[in-house]
């Protein structure tokens, strides 16, 4: 026994022999981990040298590794031209990954119950290390993902990349558009503030308007007639488990089609255009995943990260957070996120009255509003029809050519749709087509229900108690002459009350213009400031006027409580 051991020790390789032996062992491990690359090969990859073995081991990785088998071995050069894809699909994926990572961090701190959700968001913003950054990244990434999904769709449409075999890729893409929309929609509720709560309430009320199944659908969505604990939990689980998993699955299918089956389409100019043999050869030259595409993607990743961080570092983007959700108080302006403005715009169209008017034009009077309610038609019928059209694109457009000049009709349609979406989005703006009484509007502009506004930005020291009547002459400054104060935040010495005076001037001017234009006859308006509690003042805006149309006196009053230590800027 001892002998055999001694023999083993004697035979143990040393010197160069030992080194080769060790290298072989390490190499073996590395090949297993990288699914086919040797150390030498990795060195060659990093140096940018050609493959060291035949068959190309860099392709072997892609056939054997589970993760890498989603990736292409190579793309033809022209398919990687920046002006062909603009990397839009790639960046959509990038944002999705950002969402997964930041989302997992947020999940640790977020509590999906109505009585704690909002406070947990406040805690993330204020007490969690880099919590605010995580939340901003998650929100920015979400908007980025939605935006880039749309752009990517338009890109593939305009390059005609949905044709032929790629129609299935397009179909999975349409599914991804819907999944992305649902992911962002469900995330919107989670902050449990007025913004999210009411956007989702308005959004899900569309489901309710449907015939027969409407109420059941609404119940399924909200978990109760109104959004409460059940609804929040449902949205949360949808947002953090169900739909991320579905998205991962469908993105994988979508991408597998592109990478392994059809490759990215060649630009039409290469596929169908007239190129010299040389040019064609160069355009279809293989660009390998390892190392070229991979390096490029790492570069794009670093670029993406840098851009997001720069945006947040310089405060160019901040996640909104309004006051706690309040089912009893419908905000004056319910705001859907910008990528749903087109839908909000659709909802403002009333098909019944349009048809009624058209028929009235040719002398027929009908009453349609009871059958054609706009929530139902515009919210429940039109969007599925739009999705149907999208799904049908490859089958409707049977034109085999992908060259723009051969498909003027399809390109025209695409451009028309962009304008339609923009126009609908414009109509979806909260201000559009919603008639708010002038007095309400003026006060809302000066002191919006949510956000800061001029009035709330006024320093406490300028809120001198008194009754200020619109139309009276207060001289250049609202405060008594000789008044000056030291701002408790900045320590600056301020003479007079410039801020309050500006607020009052704006209030007066807008009202007096309204009076001149005949919208506010017999105007009597005041702004009253009084002490309400220690360090707390109340500002009451009170407007009385005579409504000519209804021939009655009307009044509108709104009060604001302003505390010494409140936030004056963001």
């Amino acid at each position, binding site marked *: 026994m001892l002998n055999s051991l001694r023999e083993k020790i004697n035979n143990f390789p040393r010197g160069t022999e030992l080194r080769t032996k060790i290298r072989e062992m390490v190499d073996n491990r590395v090949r297993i981990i990288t699914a086919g690359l040797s150390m030498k090969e990795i060195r060659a990859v990093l140096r940018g040298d050609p493959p060291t073995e035949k068959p190309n081991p860099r392709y072997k990785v892609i056939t054997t590794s589970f993760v890498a088998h989603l990736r292409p071995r190579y793309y033809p050069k022209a398919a990687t031209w920046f002006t062909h894809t603009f990397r839009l699909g790639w960046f959509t994926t990038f944002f999705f990954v950002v969402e997964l990572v930041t989302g997992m961090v947020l999940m640790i701190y977020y509590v999906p119950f109505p009585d704690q959700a909002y406070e947990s968001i406040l805690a993330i913003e204020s007490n969690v290390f880099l919590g605010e950054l995580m939340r901003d990244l998650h929100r920015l990434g979400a908007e980025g993902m939605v935006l880039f999904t749309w752009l990517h769709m338009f890109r593939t449409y305009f390059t005609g990349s949905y044709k032929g075999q790629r129609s299935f890729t397009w179909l999975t893409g349409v599914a991804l558009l819907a999944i992305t929309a649902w992911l962002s929609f469900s995330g919107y509720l989670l902050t449990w503030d007025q913004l999210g709560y009411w956007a989702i309430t308005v959004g899900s009320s569309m489901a309710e308007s449907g015939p027969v199944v409407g109420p059941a659908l609404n119940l399924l969505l909200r978990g109760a007639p109104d959004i409460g604990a059940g609804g929040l939990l449902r949205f949360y689980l949808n947002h953090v488990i169900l739909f991320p998993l579905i998205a991962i699955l469908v993105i994988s299918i979508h991408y597998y089609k592109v990478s392994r089956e059809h490759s990215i389409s060649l630009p039409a100019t290469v596929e169908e255009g007239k190129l010299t043999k040389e040019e064609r050869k160069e355009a279809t030259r293989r660009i390998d995943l390892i190392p070229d595409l991979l390096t490029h993607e790492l570069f794009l990743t*670093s670029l993406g990260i840098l851009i997001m961080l720069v945006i947040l570092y310089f405060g160019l983007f901040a996640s909104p957070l309004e006051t706690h959700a309040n089912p009893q108080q419908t905000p004056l302006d319910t705001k859907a996120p910008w990528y749903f403005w087109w839908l909000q715009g659709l909802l403002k169209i009333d098909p019944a009255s349009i048809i009624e008017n058209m028929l009235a034009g040719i002398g027929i009077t009908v009453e349609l509003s009871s059958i054609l309610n706009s929530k139902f038609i515009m919210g429940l019928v039109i969007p599925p029809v739009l999705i149907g059209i999208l799904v049908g694109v490859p089958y409707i457009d049977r034109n085999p050519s992908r060259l723009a000049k051969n498909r003027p009709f399809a390109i025209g349609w695409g451009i028309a749709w962009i304008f339609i979406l923009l126009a609908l989005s414009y109509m979806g703006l909260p201000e559009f087509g919603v008639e708010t009484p002038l007095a309400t509007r003026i006060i809302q502009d000066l002191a919006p229900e949510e956000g800061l506004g001029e009035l709330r930005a006024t320093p406490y020291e300028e809120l001198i108690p008194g009754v200020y009547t619109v139309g009276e002459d207060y001289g250049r400054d609202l405060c008594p002459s000789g008044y000056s104060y030291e701002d408790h935040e900045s320590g600056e010495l301020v003479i007079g009350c410039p801020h309050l005076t500006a607020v009052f001037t704006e209030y007066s001017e807008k009202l007096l213009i309204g009076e001149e234009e005949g919208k506010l006859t017999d105007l009597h308006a005041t702004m009253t400031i009084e002490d309400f509690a220690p360090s707390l003042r109340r500002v009451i805006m009170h407007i009385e006027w005579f409504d000519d149309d209804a021939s009655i006196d009307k009044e509108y009053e709104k009060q604001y409580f302003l505390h010494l230590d409140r936030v004056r800027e963001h």
Partner: protein
Amino acid sequence: MKKIHLEIIFGTVFILISALLLAIMAVKEQDRLGEEGRLSAYEGQQRASQIEFGAGIYETNCTSCHGEYGQGIPGKAPCLRCEELFSARMEEIGWQGSLEEYVESVVTTGRQVSTRPELYQGEGLGSPVMPTWSEAFGGPLREDQVKSVAAFVANFEEWGLNPELVPTPVIALPPDDPTALGRLVFVQQGCIGCHTVEGLSTATTGPVLNGLADRAGSTVDGMDAEEYIKNSIKNPSDYVVSEFNDGLMPANFSELITDEEMDLLLSFLLTLSE
């Protein structure tokens, strides 16, 4: 240089810049979380917005009993900004926690029976003197709203302990219209807590005052309307309106209402015809 090399160089530079930005943000964040001053400033802001929010809740739910400014309405509900609540009340009740917790608990559950039944009888018939407010007990307010209104009440401490700081309210109406000002005195003194005046209040503890101007001159022989009303306010027990019990209307308004305010009040009440 090949494209791939440029990408490696720029990619590395981008990552380094990103790491730098992240490091700066992390250091700032560390300071923010670590520094006492900054954090307390942030907490101060949170507190401020909580008090502002609570003020709105107070204004819509509590003024009918506790008065427009928390000054209380004699016979209806106690003052919430007076010294008593902040000095003696906790001991009197035997409350161990903080004042704010006390307020929160009273608001959450309300009071079935007053702890001072000689002062506050309520509407009788088993209805609570102060209703339950928390959703948890069937009231209208969410937990965060109860907390905010409690923060608002607790914020009165400064005035409670220093009564000289309490300012006289600014009158929120055109200063030259005695009727409008009288209406305001009527609101501020808490008369709305017991009397119905059409378009202003709906309380039923005392008689409806619409029509007062018509009947006041003929209620007591030898007293004109002005005299009668003034007397009804200052000495309510002199002539008790039938169907109402004596002692319900507080007898101390003569101390609470200045002569000037009384004149304004009269000019308002004298407009209340049928």
